[in-house]
């Protein structure tokens, strides 16, 4: 066994993945795992993975030591009632975790298949909505102009404000701003783009807010409507 050449191993996502693989391989009942067999094989696999230079996550080690502990406890010749109970509890705990893990896996697989099935259904759409979504070049040009205008208005206001308050450098992150916009949107339902941008204290913040806004549009969180000469943001799906 020691010098056995290993060319490929199934890829294990984590310790539970490997454990489930072994239990299934031996056709064991998850609720009645034979720890002595599984513990040895688990170690075997870990060693093989090491030989293949697979980076082992710490949870493999934790699981290996749990299994070894259970195995050695089971080997004790005379166990007190308490020790017996503890061992049973450990086993039951492991079985439960594995069962739940298996459920998650099966659920995931099933849902993935369902999603493929779902992609075959197209919601019937009425023309009105489609017309709004279709954008011709003329509209795109106008849109860009409008955004530029909004930016310069907000920008002008900002440069005035900066003169008055002199703000010390603050750090902004797109991710934080995204969360902030999400929160704001959940309260306001719909919001003109300017309102969002006007909250900026300086130009850098203005840019970060704008990027966060674009990102939210991209991932489909926000929908933009044109109303008069402004843009109204609303939550997608509302």
């Amino acid at each position, binding site marked *: 066994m020691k010098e056995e050449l290993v060319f490929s191993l199934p890829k294990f*996502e*984590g*310790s*539970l*993945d490997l454990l489930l693989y072994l239990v299934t391989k031996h056709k064991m009942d*998850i*609720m009645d795992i034979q720890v002595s067999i599984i513990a040895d094989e688990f170690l075997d696999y870990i060693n093989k993975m090491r030989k293949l230079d697979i980076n082992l*996550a710490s*949870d493999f080690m934790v*699981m290996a030591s749990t299994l070894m502990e259970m195995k050695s406890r089971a080997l004790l010749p005379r166990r007190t009632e308490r020790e017996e109970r503890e061992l049973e509890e450990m086993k039951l705990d492991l079985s*439960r*975790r594995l*069962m*739940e*893990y*298996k*459920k*998650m*896996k*099966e*659920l*995931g*697989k*099933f*849902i*993935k298949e*369902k*999603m493929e*099935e*779902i*992609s*075959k*259904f*197209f*919601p*019937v*759409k*009425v023309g*009105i*909505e489609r017309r709004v*979504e279709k954008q011709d070049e003329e509209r795109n040009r106008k849109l860009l102009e409008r955004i530029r205008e909004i930016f310069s208005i907000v920008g002008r206001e900002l440069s005035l404000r900066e003169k008055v308050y002199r703000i010390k450098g603050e750090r902004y992150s797109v*991710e934080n701003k*995204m969360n902030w916009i*999400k929160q704001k*949107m*959940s*309260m*306001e*339902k719909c919001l003109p783009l300017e309102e969002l941008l006007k909250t900026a204290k300086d130009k850098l913040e203005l840019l970060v807010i704008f990027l966060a806004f674009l990102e939210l549009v991209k*991932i*489909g*969180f926000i929908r933009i409507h044109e109303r008069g000469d402004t843009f109204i943001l609303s*939550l*997608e*799906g*509302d």
Partner: protein
Amino acid sequence: MNRALIEAILFSSSKPLSIPEIARISGISKDEVKKIVEEMIDEYEDEKHGIQLRASSRGYKFFTKPQYSEYAEKVAERKTRDLTIQQIEVLAYIAYRGPITRKELMELRGKSVDGILRELLNMGLISRRRSSKKGKPYEYRITRRFEEMFEPFKLEEIFREVEEVHPAFRGGVEKEGGPSDKTEEGESQRDNGR
């Protein structure tokens, strides 16, 4: 004619409509709406129609029949999301068992779920809220957007199907609460602002 009226309402809405919604808009009683909608479902099943009326978690809506998807996809836009199997697993589990804490999810997968949770939050498919549990951990739940992804299917039905098909779901581990009440709670925070 009530039937025609309901058909017109269903066709002009971009989102699925529930029985009470249709009743409110049309002024027809809920019982009558339900009866008509069910008749319409049967009627559109007929092979002379290329579309069908279907019930999803949010309500009733017309969809193209799957056998014509090859043609429908040439003209229609349906936003599909490419999710990794790990993302799907976590999502599905949150939908099935949620609301659930990060710690519980971590124990379930045997490793960190932080990255996946962040991605799903950013996609707007899950939301989080402080729970009243000790230490006030965040509890994660699916959003309405996630339910929309499954239209025209109902999540409860999908879960019922899994439970029937897979032996692991029958007995074994105790289960707190059915999946059906989960989808009710599964609305995101943003829905509370309505």
